[in-house]
């Protein structure tokens, strides 16, 4: 028998993501554990690199809004899907899983799963099994975007859970899902090993290697060194400055745009950014090419909220580098020099290289007439500032939290919808615009894709018009891998599919 092929991955995560269902460690968790061990009703199509990734059928083969009730979605489940423990997947299992996230009294209820799921169930009201392979989910308000949310809810095996008396920790040590890999072994904090699931329902995605080893390596230089010393085969986000060295060692470097936004959410109530002219001035003050250069080309200039390949990108107002214009706008707004304070972090998921980048932002803004104070804090402290909203932090004029934009809600609504004003949601700076609210409500209630696309485009263009953020760059998310690997396609997504990778013998 040929030697076992092993794919060893250096993850950016600081720890092994939770294996008990919905993972932790941010989108790294979904990327490496969630979508590998498990499936959701809805999955992401990660097979192409040329278009922005969108959702595709997962455990559900199709879904549609109940023609009689625009708050009731009906999901048709896939036939002949089996959990790793061999038991078949049915509508009852889906309902069981939803109760695991939502029903506090249920035996399988788990507070951590609740915490992770809650962000995607804000509009959720209930679920019922219609028949053996059909479930219906009702929402509080009409929600045309519900299927996107369903893509984050991982379905675990109720049988395995029952075997361990619904103890989530015991389950995590021996999990069972429906995903393309099965759990093999784990050294907490150090490594997670998964093996190929030869019986995976999607024959195209049965892994082309035998074993997947996931190693948490939060330090960029650690990952780089590990790849160079042959300790791992595939790493995420090498330091841009290390890329030439990696290339010279014949490593393959791939990159692609994905729905990521390195920007500042602004305070629309207190301070100078309440004035549109100041917001525009800031956006004109940045020479985004410098950032791209500093990041070794591994970023796209961030002129608008979304990446240009997004279907509803539209034709937003373009904030070219124009310091003179910026200064003029500040003059006009009567804010020169314009004192602003940004809360920034020293590290964090998706924050790229926060310190030098923020320093560069500061330098460029100051060249155009701003006076910038950076309040540096650790990642969790910044998240707290973000969560509490401008109300508790009136002296902060902007926060630098990089957000994901993978669907219209997360990409746009939550930043501009007044219903999402912090601390209820992610509208940190309390942007409030009735027109915008109307557009959002309209989009949520529109179930016709083409029509919805039009509204979404309108929203994006309006965001640019109103300069609701100070945009800087979109990450290109470089990945480096050993020359022995073949078959990887980098999708325009936070998530990636590792199953097609083949490994040449050494």
């Amino acid at each position, binding site marked *: 028998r040929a030697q076992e092929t092993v794919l060893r991955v250096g993850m950016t995560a600081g720890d092994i993501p939770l294996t008990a269902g919905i993972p932790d460690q941010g989108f790294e968790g979904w990327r490496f554990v969630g979508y590998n061990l498990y499936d959701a009703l809805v999955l992401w199509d990660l097979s192409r690199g040329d278009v922005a990734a969108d959702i595709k059928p997962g455990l559900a083969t199709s879904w549609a809004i109940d023609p009689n009730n625009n708050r009731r979605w009906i999901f048709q489940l896939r036939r002949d899907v089996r959990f790793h423990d061999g038991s078949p997947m049915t509508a009852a299992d889906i309902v069981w899983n939803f109760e695991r996230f939502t029903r506090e009294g249920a035996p399988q209820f788990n507070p951590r799963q609740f915490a992770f799921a809650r962000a995607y169930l804000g509009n959720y009201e209930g679920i019922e099994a219609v028949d053996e392979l059909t479930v219906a989910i009702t929402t509080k308000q009409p929600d045309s975007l519900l299927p996107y949310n369903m893509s984050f809810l991982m379905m675990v095996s109720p049988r395995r859970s029952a075997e361990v008396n619904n103890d989530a920790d015991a389950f995590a040590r021996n999990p069972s899902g429906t995903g393309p890999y099965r759990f093999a072994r784990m050294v907490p904090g150090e490594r997670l090993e998964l093996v190929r699931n030869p019986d995976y329902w999607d024959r195209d995605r049965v892994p082309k290697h035998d074993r997947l080893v996931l190693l948490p390596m939060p330090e960029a230089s650690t990952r780089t060194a590990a790849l160079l010393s042959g300790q791992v085969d595939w790493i995420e986000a090498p330091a*841009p400055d290390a890329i030439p*060295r990696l290339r010279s060692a014949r490593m393959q470097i791939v990159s692609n745009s994905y729905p990521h936004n390195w920007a500042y959410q602004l305070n629309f109530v207190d301070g100078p950014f309440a004035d549109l002219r100041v917001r525009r001035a800031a956006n004109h003050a940045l020479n985004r090419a410098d950032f791209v250069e500093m990041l070794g080309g591994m970023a796209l200039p961030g002129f608008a909220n979304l990446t240009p390949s997004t279907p509803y990108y539209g034709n937003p107002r373009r904030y070219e580098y124009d310091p003179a214009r910026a200064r003029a706008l500040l003059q006009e707004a009567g804010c020169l020099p314009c004192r602003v304070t940004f809360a920034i972090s020293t590290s964090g998921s998706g924050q790229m290289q926060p310190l030098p980048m923020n320093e560069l932002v500061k330098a460029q803004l100051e060249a155009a007439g701003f006076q910038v104070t950076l309040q540096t804090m650790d990642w969790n402290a910044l998240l707290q500032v973000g969560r509490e909203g401008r109300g508790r932090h009136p002296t902060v004029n902007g926060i630098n939290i990089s957000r994901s934009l993978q669907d219209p809600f997360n990409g746009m609504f939550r930043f501009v919808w007044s219903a999402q004003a912090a601390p209820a949601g992610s509208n940190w700076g309390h942007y409030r615009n009735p027109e915008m609210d109307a557009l959002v409500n309209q989009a949520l209630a529109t179930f016709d894709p083409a029509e919805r696309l039009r509204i979404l485009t309108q929203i994006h263009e309006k965001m640019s018009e109103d300069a609701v953020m100070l945009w800087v760059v979109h990450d290109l998310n470089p990945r480096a891998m050993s020359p022995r690997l073949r078959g990887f396609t980098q999708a325009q997504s936070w998530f990636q599919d590792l199953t097609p990778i083949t490994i040449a013998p050494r």
Partner: protein
Amino acid sequence: MSTAVSDTAAPDAAELALPTQRGYWGTVGYRLRYDHVTLFFGALLLLIILAAVAAPLLAPFDPYQESIIRRLKPPGYQDRYWLGTDELGRDMLSRLLHGGRITLTMGILPVIIATLIGGSLGVLAGFAGGVVNMSIMRVMDVFYAFPSVLLAVAISGAMGGGAVNGMIALTLVFIPPLCRVAETATTQVRNLDFVDAARATGAPMHLVVRHHVIGNVLGPILIYASSLVSVAIILASGLSFLGLGVKPPDPDWGLMLNALRQAIYVSPLVAAMPGIAILITSISMNLVSDGLRAAMDVRS
């Protein structure tokens, strides 16, 4: 009636011939003069400190002035950036000079404050003895139960980092050992006869301590404190390295070390510089402290 004592009648040759008219510090100085290693590193240290003090005058550029175009240039770039540029194109020499101020302050200030606090507590505990000694030293024991790195990281981690918090953490870390050294030295001195002799004059306690104890415990305390400076510098930059000390963009050496870690593939020489700066400073500090110790050790 006179106390006839032969010696006074004629200060004789034997007495006049007693050679060492140097005071204690004179002897120390004399010994140091022949200790070439200490002299060399003392001069080096002085140079480093002077360079740090005069950084604004010496630095050819603004240490915060960045430029992406000239980032990570090797030493000698454009004949003006003698030590090259960092990851944001800032002049390395200027940053190292300014960084010296921060790093040295982070290293020296906590030791000074800890010496004042820990030293006084130790002298108090050593001289008062009894219950006072017990209560002070037991509290110190608790802090002593933490390895210094752990304590520094724990405190500054808890207080959320930052230069000031880092210095507070380091101060807290150094108080217990200094207190112990002071206490031991004081207990030793207190048991010497001259302290008893001073007490026997009926002089008030504070005068006895001031004139007879402090002077004699100062030596050991200062020697110990000077040996802590290098530990403090390494610890402080370690904190910055972990992100718990100085915050960017201030050019602390430890922080620069961390930031330039990524650049090691592009410009290894530049990336190595902050580490070398720490190393040289710390070696100098250690050797000078050793030299002082040897020179101040009257027995040898």
